[in-house]
C-alpha cells in the first residue's frame, strides 16, 4: 500500500467523527451533560446551605473533593509521560496516542483544579488566596504549580495540533459549517506548511516537550507536600514526593490505556492504535506497578514496624479497621492483580491490559481516599475516631466530575482529530525511508539547531503540497 493511500484512509478515519454526528453521540453527550447539570445542582445546594451538606466536619475536613483532586492531578501525568517523555526519547510507537494523552492532561487538570474550589465551600474567598496568600504555604505552591502546568499543557496540546487544524480548515472550506471553518481558520494560525512555519513549530514543540517534564514532576510533588508538610500521622513522610509522582504516572498510564481502548473501539482506530501500543504501555504499567508497590511497602512497613502510638492506630485502622476494605482493594485489586495480568503472557492481551488499567484507576482513586481521610479521622486528643460518610452532594459532584471529564473529552473528539495525523504520517515516512531508501521519496528532516533531541518533522505530503504552492506562485 502506498503512503498516499494510507494517508487518505487515515484522514478519512480520523476526520470522520468531525464530519458525521450519530444519534448515539447525542445520546451519550446528553447523558453526560445531564449528570454534569445534576452535579452543578448539588453544588448549588452546597453553596446555599454550606459545607454542612457534605460529610466533612471539624475533624475530617477533606473528603471526596480532595481525593478527586489528587486523582485527577495524578492522571494528568499521562500527557507528560506519553507525549513529552516518549517524544524526547523518540519512541516511534507513541505517534497515534500522543494527542489523546495531551488531551487527558489538559482535561484532567481542568477538572482537578475545580475540586479544591468546590472544597472551599465559599468560592468568594478564592481571591484571598492570591490577595493574602503567603509564599510559605504549600497551598500557594499548589496554586502556582497547577496554573503553570495547566498553561503549559494547553500550549503543548495546541502546538502539535496546528497542522491538523489547517487540514480541518481546508476540509471545511466552502461547506455549510461556516462557524467551524472560522474556528479552524483562527486556530490554525494561517498554517501553510512553509519552511519558516515548520521551523517555528518545531522550535515551539521542542521547548515545550522539555519544559513540561519538570513542571509535571513538580506539580505532583507539590500536591504531595500539602500532606507531608504537616505533622499528621500517615502524612508526615519524606518519600511522599516521589511516591506521589510515581503514583501519578502509574494512574496516568492506566488512564491513557483506558481512553485508548474506548476511542479505538468507537472511532474504529484498530489500524493505527494496534496491539503494539497496548503492549508497550502495558509493560510500562507493569514497571510502574512494581515501583508503586515498592514505595507502598516502604511507606507502610516503616510505619508498622515502628508502631509509634498514633501511627500504630492508623495502621490498625487501615489494615484491619473501617478502611481495610478500601486499603486492601487498592493493594490487591489495584496493584497486585493488575501486575499479574500484565506480567503473565496469556493475559497480556488488549482486553487483559485494559482490565488491568481499569483496576489500576479504581485502585488509585481508593488509594487517594485512604491517604486523605483516615489521617484526618485519627484523633489528636483523647476522643474517638472521627467518622466520614460522604453525602449525596459529594457523591453527585464526584460523579459529575467524572462525567465532566468524559464530556470534555467527547466534545474535543467531536471538534478536533483525536489522533495526530501529521505525526502518524511522519512516522510512516520515516519507516518507509528506513525500510527502502531507494524507493522512498526523500523527506527533508529539519532539525533544531544544536545537539538537542530531534523534534517532530512535517510529513512529506505536507511538504510536497508546500512545494506545489510555491511552484504555483
Amino acid at each position, binding site marked *: 500500500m502506498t503512503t498516499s493511500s494510507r494517508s487518505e484512509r487515515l484522514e478519512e478515519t480520523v476526520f470522520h467523527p468531525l464530519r458525521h454526528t450519530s444519534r448515539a453521540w447525542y445520546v451519550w453527550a446528553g447523558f453526560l451533560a445531564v449528570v454534569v447539570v445534576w452535579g452543578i445542582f448539588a453544588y448549588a445546594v452546597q453553596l446555599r446551605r454550606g459545607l454542612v451538606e457534605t460529610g466533612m466536619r471539624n475533624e475530617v475536613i477533606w473528603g471526596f473533593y480532595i481525593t478527586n483532586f489528587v486523582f485527577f492531578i495524578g492522571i494528568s501525568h499521562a500527557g507528560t509521560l506519553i507525549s513529552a517523555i516518549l517524544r524526547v526519547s523518540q519512541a516511534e510507537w507513541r505517534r497515534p496516542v500522543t494527542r489523546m494523552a495531551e488531551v487527558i492532561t489538559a482535561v484532567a487538570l481542568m477538572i482537578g483544579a475545580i475540586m479544591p474550589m468546590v472544597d472551599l465551600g465559599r468560592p468568594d474567598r478564592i481571591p484571598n488566596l492570591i490577595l493574602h496568600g503567603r509564599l510559605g504555604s504549600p497551598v500557594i505552591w499548589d496554586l*502556582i504549580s497547577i496554573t503553570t502546568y495547566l498553561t*503549559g499543557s494547553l500550549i503543548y496540546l495546541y502546538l502539535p495540533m496546528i497542522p491538523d487544524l489547517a487540514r480541518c480548515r481546508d476540509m471545511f472550506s466552502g461547506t455549510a459549517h461556516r462557524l467551524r471553518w472560522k474556528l479552524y481558520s483562527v486556530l490554525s494560525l494561517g498554517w501553510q506548511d512553509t519552511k519558516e*512555519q515548520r521551523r*517555528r513549530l518545531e*522550535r*515551539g514543540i521542542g521547548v515545550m516537550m522539555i519544559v513540561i517534564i519538570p*513542571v509535571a514532576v513538580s506539580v505532583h510533588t507539590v500536591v504531595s507536600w500539602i500532606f507531608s508538610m504537616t505533622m499528621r500521622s500517615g502524612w508526615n513522610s519524606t518519600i511522599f514526593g516521589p511516591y506521589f509522582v510515581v503514583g501519578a504516572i502509574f494512574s496516568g498510564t492506566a488512564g491513557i490505556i483506558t481512553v485508548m481502548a474506548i476511542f479505538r473501539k468507537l472511532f474504529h482506530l484498530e489500524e493505527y492504535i494496534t496491539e503494539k501500543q497496548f503492549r508497550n504501555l502495558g509493560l510500562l504499567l507493569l514497571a510502574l506497578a512494581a515501583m508503586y508497590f515498592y514505595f507502598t511497602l516502604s511507606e507502610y512497613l516503616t510505619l508498622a514496624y515502628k508502631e509509634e502510638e498514633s501511627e500504630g492506630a492508623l495502621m490498625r485502622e487501615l489494615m484491619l479497621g473501617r478502611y481495610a476494605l478500601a486499603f486492601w482493594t487498592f493493594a490487591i485489586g489495584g496493584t497486585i492483580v493488575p501486575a499479574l495480568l500484565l506480567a503473565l503472557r496469556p493475559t497480556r492481551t488488549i482486553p487483559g491490559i485494559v482490565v488491568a488499567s481499569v483496576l489500576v484507576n479504581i485502585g488509585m482513586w481508593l488509594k487517594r481516599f485512604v491517604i486523605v481521610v483516615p489521617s484526618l479521622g485519627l484523633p489528636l486528643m483523647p476522643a474517638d475516631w472521627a467518622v466520614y460518610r460522604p453525602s449525596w452532594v459529594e457523591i453527585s459532584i464526584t460523579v459529575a466530575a467524572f462525567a465532566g471529564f468524559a464530556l470534555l473529552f467527547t466534545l474535543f473528539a467531536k471538534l478536533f482529530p483525536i489522533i495526530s495525523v501529521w505525526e502518524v504520517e511522519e512516522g510512516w515516512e520515516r519507516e518507509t525511508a528506513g525500510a527502502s531508501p531507494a524507493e522512498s521519496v526523500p523527506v527533508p528532516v529539519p532539525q533544531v539547531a544544536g545537539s538537542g533531541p530531534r523534534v517532530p518533522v512535517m510529513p512529506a505530503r505536507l511538504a510536497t503540497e508546500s512545494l506545489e*504552492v510555491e511552484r504555483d506562485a
Partner: protein
Amino acid sequence: MRRQPRLLPAFLSIAMGLAITSAGWLVSAPPAHADGNEVEKIRVEITDNGFNNDPDFTIEVAQGAVVEITFVWAQTMDLDDEHVIVLKGYGVETDKITYFNKESTLKFIADKPGSFELTCDVDCEIHDVLRRGHLKVGAGGSAGSGGGSASALTKTALSLTPSAWSVTSGPVILTASLKDAEGAGVPKAEVRFFVEADFAGTKGLREVGIADTDSTGMAQVVFQPTTEGTQRVLARFEGVGLYAESEQSVEVEAVGDLPTYSIAPASLEALRARAPFVVAAAVLAVWTAYGFAVYQAIRIVRSGSARAAETGRKG
C-alpha cells in the same frame, strides 16, 4: 718586718675585684621571674603612626620567655580615642587604654612558636596602623617550651557553684569563680561549661555555654537540664597568659518535667528569606519558556500572512 701589711692590699684588691665582678654580674643580668624564668619586659608606645611610630611593628621573643608588654598612650591627636590591644593566638588582651588610663600590660609565656597578630580590638581612629603589629616567637628559646614555661605559670583555682543542687524543671545558674594563687580574682578569663552526656552509648562532654570572668573573677551561664537524674556539670578554664588551667565539676540532680532540649536549633531564617526568590526565578524561567513557545506560534501567523500577501501580489 712582718709580711702582714703586704697581704692587706692584696686581700683588698681581691675583695674589690670580687665585689666589682659581682656587682657587674648583678648589673648585667636580666631581671628574672620569681620562678627562675627570664622576664622580657617590652615597652611599646601607641602613637599616631602605630606601635612605636612603626606601622609594621614587630616584636621578637624567644620561645618559653615570660613576656611583659606594656602599652603606653603616646597619641597626640584624637585624645578621646581608646584602644584594647589583643594578642591573637594567645588569647590575652589589655585593659582599655585611653588618655586618662595611659598604660596597660600584657603578661604571658611565649610558649607557642610562630607569628601572632598584635592588634587593637576596638574601632579606634588609628585602627589602620594598629592592626599590623606582630609578635614573633622564635623556636628554641633559652627557657624551652616544656617544663620551664609550665613552672612559670601562676596556679589558678576554679570553683563551681550551681544556683540549686536539685532542679525540678527550670534552668539552673552555674557560677564559676576563678582565683589565682594569692586568692585574687582572675578577670577576662574564658570559662567553658560542660555537662556529661551520653551520645548514643558513648559518654562525652556537651558544651553548655561559655562566659568571661568579670573583674572579680566570676563567670555565669544558664543551664537547662534535659534529662532526668544526676547530671555532672563541669567548668573549665583552659589557661591564658600566665595563668595555668583549672577545672571543677559538681553534680546537679534534675527531676520533674524537663524540656526536650535547651539549645535552640540553628535558625533557617536565612534560607527561608532566599527561598521565594529561587522559586520565583524557577517559575519565571518556565513562563519564559512558555513565552518563547507562544512567540513561535505568533511567528507562524506572521510568516503565514506574509506568504499569503506575497502570493496575492504575484497573482
